[in-house]
């Protein structure tokens, strides 16, 4: 409780209220007020999530900070919120990144500042709702609502081809979520009139129904992850999105898909999950290898990092569907780490884009001569993207690989190729952009990053290195919930 208010509700509604306030500042005459309000809102939004961490009980797998109120009594729908070890860290991650994107957009966004800032604040609250909702309809509302701010962010502040990208993004994800709604209603009937996710997890379901439910959920979540072959919206969306949009897309939105598998698919349909695990593993391995290869020849930096994201998310889904503790904790740690690393990489590309207005690798070369401080940060994040030990990215990849080899040596063999491909596409890009002599006069005029940009990148550096060197605190939060989930997934839910 903060000032007598429930923590999670504050974490959801405070950013949204601030978003509305920011919007109320009106047009760009009041831009500086809008920026200031947005910064205060995002900082407060992050501050109010901290009690979730400090007050978290790591010994239990039960939901914590639970809030339960009637919402639509007619259909037994509740305003039901709570977090466990799986979701809590993502609420913090999300609120943290809201601060980052507000600072990142500080000077860069000059048109419709209030709307831009408001969109991110509203988004932040909605995403917290996704991670904390325990009622499936509440979840669904947040889930769909999440699309709207992102749709606007890409559609208004995006690049030249933004309309195609937003439509693709919107239709892809909408199609997936409609199937999920069908599954939710079916489960409502099955439980005898409850929309509670926790009730869904207890109810016995016959195999063919489980498989259909699994498939319905699969489309909703796989699109968001995104898994091969429903991934093609992501590179387009990233390329067209403004820097802040890309950061939130990579750091936060991709995580809700994997979170959906953890919260819905696996505990509600454990038998189907086991039965279809082979397909999930195959799709994950394709994502790791195929997408890793595709990333190699991208000529657009953002597209390259977008493909790299898909490849890294392949590790997440692989870790989930091998059903052991290494894999699942590795997957969750990989989700967190990918937030920091991919977010940081998009910010780095944003730094370059703000100066050169190009994302083409070929337009760069020799940036280090003009921006040595920036090059050092970029190097660190590039190495993290290659999974170097000592950075956060290593923790998840290492654990998933260790878990995978328990299941099948050859799965691990295929997944471990990321050591080579990941380094190849990331460092090759780095080489062409940063190293070498100054290639053209535009690069020659570059100025190194300013204090604001250093602040953002330094904050992310702390997390990337801190989590890489000492992941234990993160792991401890996941521990109880992951173990409990593994026990549940191991038990059949077929009716006797």
């Amino acid at each position, binding site marked *: 409780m903060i000032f007598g208010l429930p923590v999670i509700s504050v974490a959801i509604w405070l950013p949204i209220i601030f978003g509305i306030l920011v919007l109320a500042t009106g047009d760009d005459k009041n831009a500086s007020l809008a920026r200031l309000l947005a910064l205060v809102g995002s900082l407060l939004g992050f501050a109010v999530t901290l009690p979730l961490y400090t007050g978290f009980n790591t010994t239990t797998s039960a939901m914590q900070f639970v809030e339960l109120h009637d919402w639509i009594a007619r259909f037994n729908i509740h305003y039901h919120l709570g977090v466990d070890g799986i979701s809590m860290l993502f609420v913090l991650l999300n609120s943290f990144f809201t601060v980052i994107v507000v600072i990142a957009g500080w000077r860069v966004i000059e048109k419709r500042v209030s709307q831009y800032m408001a969109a991110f604040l509203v988004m932040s609250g909605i995403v917290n709702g996704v991670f904390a909702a325990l009622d499936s309809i509440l979840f669904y509302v947040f889930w769909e609502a999440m699309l709207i701010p992102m749709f606007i962010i890409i559609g208004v502040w995006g690049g030249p081809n933004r309309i195609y990208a937003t439509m*693709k993004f919107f*239709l*892809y994800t909408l199609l997936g979520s409609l199937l999920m709604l069908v599954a939710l209603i079916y489960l409502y009937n099955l439980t005898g009139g409850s929309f509670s996710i926790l009730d869904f997890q207890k109810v016995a379901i016959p195999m063919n129904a489980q498989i259909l439910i699994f498939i319905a959920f699969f489309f909703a979540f796989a699109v968001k992850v995104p898994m091969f*072959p429903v991934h*093609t919206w992501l*590179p387009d969306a990233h390329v067209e999105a403004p820097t802040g949009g890309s950061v939130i897309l990579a750091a936060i939105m991709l995580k809700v898909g994997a979170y959906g598998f953890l919260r819905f698919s696996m505990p509600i349909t454990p038998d189907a999950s086991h039965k279809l695990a082979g397909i999930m593993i195959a799709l994950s391995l394709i994502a790791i290898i*195929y997408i890793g*290869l*595709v*990333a*190699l*020849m*991208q000529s657009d930096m953002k597209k390259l990092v977008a493909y790299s994201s898909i490849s890294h998310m392949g590790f997440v889904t692989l870790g989930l569907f091998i059903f*052991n*503790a*290494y894999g699942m*904790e*590795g997957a969750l740690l990989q989700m967190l780490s990918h937030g920091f690393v991919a977010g940081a990489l998009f910010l780095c590309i944003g730094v370059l884009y703000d100066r050169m207005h190009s994302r083409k690798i070929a337009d760069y070369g*020799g940036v*280090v*001569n003009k921006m040595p401080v920036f090059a050092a940060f970029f*190097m660190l994040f590039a*190495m993290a993207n290659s999974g*170097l*030990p*000592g950075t956060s990215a290593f*923790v998840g990849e*290492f*654990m998933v*690989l*260790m878990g*995978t*080899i*328990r299941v*099948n*040596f*050859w799965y*691990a*063999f295929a997944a*471990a*190729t990321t*050591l*080579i491909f990941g*380094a*190849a596409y990331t*460092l*090759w890009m780095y*080489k062409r952009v*940063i*190293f*070498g*002599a100054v290639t053209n006069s535009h690069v020659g005029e570059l100025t190194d990053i300013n204090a604001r940009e250093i602040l953002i990148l330094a904050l992310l550096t702390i997390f990337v290195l801190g989590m890489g060197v*000492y*992941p*234990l605190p993160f*792991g*401890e939060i996941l*521990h109880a919930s992951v173990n409990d989930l593994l026990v549940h997934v191991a038990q059949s839910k077929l009716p006797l």
Partner: protein
Amino acid sequence: MNIQNYYLIVPFAPLLGAIIAGLFGRALGRRTTHRIVIALVGLSLFSAIRIFQDVMAGHLFNGPVYTWLNSGDTSFQVGFLIDRLTATMMLVVTSVSLMVHIYTIGYMEEDEGYQRFFSYISLFTFSMLMLVMSNNFMQLFFGWEAVGLVSYLLIGFWYTRPTAIYANLKAFLVNRVGDFGFLLGIGLVLKVFGTLDYAAVFANVANHANDIAPIPGMSVNLLTAICILLFIGAMGKSAQFPLHVWLPDSMEGPTPISALIHAATMVTAGIFMVARMSPVFELSDAALSFVMVIGAITALFMGFLGIIQNDIKRVIAYSTLSQLGYMTVALGASAYPVAIFHLMTHAFFKALLFLAAGSVIIGMHHDQDIRNMGGLRKYMPITWITSLIGSLALIGTPFFSGFYSKDSIIEAVGRSHLAGSGFAYFSVVACVFITAFYSFRMYFLVFHGKERFGGHHDHQEDHADEEVAADHHHGLAPGQKPHESPWVVTLPLVLLAIPSVVIGYIAIGPMLFGGYFKDAIYIAQNHEVMRELQEEFHGSFAMAVHAFSSLPLWLAVAGVVISGYFYLMRPDIPAALQKRFHGIYVLLDNKYYFDRFNDWFFAGGARMLSRFLGDAGDKFLIDGLVVNGSAGLVGRFSGVVRRFQTGYIYHYAFTMIVGVFVLLSIRNWF
């Protein structure tokens, strides 16, 4: 002070130095930065000596520093294992590192990246120490990759040179291929033993000696599989055939790091790792054979390449590859102490040779082509004498350090009975001649004979790289003479020359035959090489005397004499041979076409596959056919449906009636 505090000081003092130099180097200025960094590395060396004394007094340590992560029932820890193997490595690493730090003051004097360079080499020292001090596989892998990172940064130190940034990317990726195997090996260890702690794995390893590896579709012995996978990592890091390709190119980095990283320490990480894993390797003869054959191939074939190099650093680089092959062969013969012994002597004399080469390069104003040198002994006396000492040690002159370690390797391989030991023995013996030949070819061309510098640089076009960064490759102007380097450069040469001469004589008895490594190295009962060597060893002096009646010494003498004859007296002979055996020369000049093949097959193939998958998969199949195709389909369908929206009531009524009729009939049928 508690000895455990020293354990922490050894790696973390250099790390602190790296952080200070990296973050505040510019603010502190050059002089303050190098003073702080060198003081911290000196502190690290001092602590390493204290620990060494403590370990020799019998105080071992194996314990955690902190818990990295708990998952399932497994606890991953960061911890130290301090035994005699570790203590020896710590001494080698910190002492060579200190020499290189001091040398850097002189070598990098004019470089803009002065503080950055200090930051990197201190970071390297930290990483290497974490690697050797680890008590578990996870931390080993951390150190393993971290030294790879610093190597990458240092090879590409002069980042405006296209060759440097090509070489560092290549080095990193080739190493990653090795690490790919290494990580899978670690995975198998964790799967089978349930822990990554060395002690726990080694205690349990005998129980799994006859297990089949859990690799579907293959029936390989478990330990053989683990050892070979781990050794693939060593092949990357220690540049063994066929993953050796990165090391010659790594010479693009500044010379101090060629000495520190690419000769003395990092490249020996693989040798150290196998010695550390001796309890596992000892239980798999197949893996040992594999190790020995790979080492023998590397020793022999990389030695050949040394003969035709004209870049002073590349000659030494191929010599390093060849010597690493020697160490690997010793590992395969179960002569782990001999491998570590050679690692140590090699660290000193090869660091000496590289630093001396660096001194020559300074004297020659960054001209590295030995064809442009000659007669330097007059101008650079200290560099000359120390180079001679280093070369004599390298070719195995009796009483010099290299003699004791190399001769022991040859003797050990001769006594091995594993498959492949015959070939390995032939390789290491033949390579004695080759080593002597290319070492003294370089020595004679650089320090003796006619003075060829100051003229037109006819040979420059051979090395396309040299014209690019003019500031580092300008060479001597006509009439200009080379001069001896400042004391910060020559002092490390002298300090390294001392152990290059004496350390073999002093250390061979206690280190190889005094039970020096105790439990740090395990040798199975049926591998009797070390015991046989011990029986024949009657003191350092006797061993050197005995060498005069053995083949290798006379091969070495032949190598020196022939190279002297060829390059000092009859330079027309090698030129004629080069013409006569043109085919072989071209093969060697192209380094057996490995680079070409890798560029064409792996790099080119990956790019082609990437382009194909991107175009055919993502753009054509998924986006073209499925996504945009289905959008088009919906569009066409809606075009048809739109015709029903006529606005006439009777059309709608008719449709409704048809609909009701259809629905009713479906209901009746089921």
